[in-house]
């Protein structure tokens, strides 16, 4: 029963929500969809902030609500990070952090105050007033405040969307380290594929109040039948391990069972798990393994299917030898010239790789 099960059905005016999914009680599950798809409604229902007439919310072996029971929000051991930090303006930063922490019985506090403060790098902010914080700092406090209640489920509602690009980039590493430091499962609402690619293990895709796909983030992100793949920045995720460092050319090699990938030198221990993101537009295809090219990362792959995204361009979904998926965006003209078809073996030339974590 180490899973989170959510079944919700409600009608709010014109909007009907009918969502049902189960996800492992570990890692980050992204609730993904455009605005108005019902992501936030799901999150609020899970938190008990709204009462859905028909619903089941189960976290591991604890049922938070079913037909007969409804635990109000304050009796659900969860942490909630809202889109805007929503710090209490009448309390200092420290008091904000302590608000939830004090309300959890001592023996149930699993996360030490100090650890959270350190992890989120907010030690110097404790004595400040909330008014004096930057947007990024405020959101870090909000995340810390939620964590300090030792939640059994962390709910995050687009916690980065109200921040500018710079602040987003500074917070993402904190969110990633959350993932590594604490074993709290989380539901993460987002409409940004990049964010999801960096943070999510699993994805539930919502459209008009219904689940249209769910599964591993790497799979979902590259499925051509989903609207995601049509996004300009369609990308694929590859998992691997750090295998070696090339001191001469300043590279770090990450190996997957489907091939080796080089990235710019990163100070990571050999053997560490690594996740990289590859934009579909950065992957070109070739029928042969060229050695007369400037591109280092050349991976053998097999065509699974194709999908036209405009009159000019198409996406090709490829499978590597180890089963991981790679997306490539090429022109329809090239595809025709190469005679691309399902089952065809070829080489993917990867121009640029981003290390996510």
């Amino acid at each position, binding site marked *: 029963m180490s899973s989170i099960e959510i079944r919700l059905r409600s009608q709010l005016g014109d909007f009907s929500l009918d969502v049902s999914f189960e996800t492992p009680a570990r890692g980050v599950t992204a609730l993904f969809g455009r605005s108005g798809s019902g992501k936030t409604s799901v999150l609020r229902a899970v*938190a*008990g*902030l709204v009462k859905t007439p028909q619903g089941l919310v189960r976290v591991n072996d604890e049922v938070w609500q079913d037909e007969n029971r409804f635990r*109000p*929000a*304050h009796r659900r051991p*969860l*942490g*909630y990070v*809202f889109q*805007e930090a*929503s710090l*209490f*303006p*009448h309390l200092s930063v420290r008091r904000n952090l302590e*608000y*939830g922490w004090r*309300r*959890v019985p001592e023996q149930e506090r699993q996360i030490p105050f100090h650890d959270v403060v350190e992890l989120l790098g907010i030690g110097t902010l404790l004595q400040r007033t*909330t*008014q004096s914080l930057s947007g990024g700092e405020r959101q870090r406090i909000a995340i810390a*405040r*939620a964590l300090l*209640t030792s939640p059994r489920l962390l*709910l995050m509602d687009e916690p980065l969307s109200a921040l500018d690009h710079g602040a987003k980039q500074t917070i993402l590493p904190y969110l990633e380290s959350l993932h590594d430091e604490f074993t709290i499962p989380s539901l993460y609402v987002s409409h940004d594929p990049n964010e999801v690619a960096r943070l999510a293990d699993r994805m539930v895709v919502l459209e008009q109040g219904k689940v249209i796909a769910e599964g591993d983030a790497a799979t979902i992100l590259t499925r051509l039948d989903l609207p995601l793949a049509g996004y300009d920045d369609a990308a694929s995720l590859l998992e691997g391990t750090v295998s070696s460092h090339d001191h001469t050319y300043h590279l770090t090699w990450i190996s997957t069972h489907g091939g080796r990938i080089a990235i710019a030198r990163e100070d990571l221990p050999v053997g560490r798990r690594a996740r990289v993101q590859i934009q579909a537009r950065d992957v070109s295809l070739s029928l042969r393994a060229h050695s007369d090219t400037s591109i280092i990362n050349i991976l053998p792959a097999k065509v699974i299917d194709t999908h036209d995204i405009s009159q000019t361009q198409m996406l090709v979904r490829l499978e590597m030898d180890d089963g991981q998926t790679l997306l490539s965006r090429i022109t329809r003209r090239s595809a025709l010239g190469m005679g691309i078809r399902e089952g065809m073996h070829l080489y993917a030339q990867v121009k640029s790789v981003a290390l996510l974590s």
Partner: protein
Amino acid sequence: MIFDWQPVWLTLKLAGVSTLILLVIGTPIAWWLARSTTWYKQIISAVVALPLVLPPTVLGFYLLIMLGPEGPVGRLTQSLGLGTLPFTFGGLVVASVIYSMPFVVQPLQNAFQSLGQRPVEVASTLRASPWDRFMTVVIPLARPGFLTAAVLSFAHTIGEFGVVLMIGGNIPGVTKVLSVAIYDHVETLEYGQAHLLAAGLLAFSFAVLLTLYLLNGRLNRNHQP
């Protein structure tokens, strides 16, 4: 000239007690009005605002009827062995509470509305029970609203005259409040006494209002995000 302090103390007591009761009664009403979406909410709003419309002597007259031995409230208080309320300090308190109700409910309702749903939701995801979050989040955040409500209710009760005159019967030490005393002095051409009381009333009220507004201003500044 012997200065008669009795009306002064009586007035302060009346204003203090009424304000306290009004805050206790008005807060849940205002909270409900700020949150509720039922159709009859507007009816309740209108009822609460009615004392603003009625001239004080008219309101006093109806209170006299309602609270009197033949009125519905009077029958109730009599059957409870409490006697009737007119001509008692308790009666003045009841009248002031009704009369000043809109001055408490409306600022509180505004404060609660402008607070929005979010802080309360945040508190509930941080394990705070409804009562807990009301005390630790709603009240501190709505403090300017509470101050305004308290100031208005206190000031309004101090200055209240028509209703008090009607329901009080001008009994020294029991229902003869400052405004009535001043009126008496003016009517009987004892301008010296009247001026003294009126000047004292004005100075005191000004001091109270100024203090509270200054406090309020500082609070507002602190709350600016």
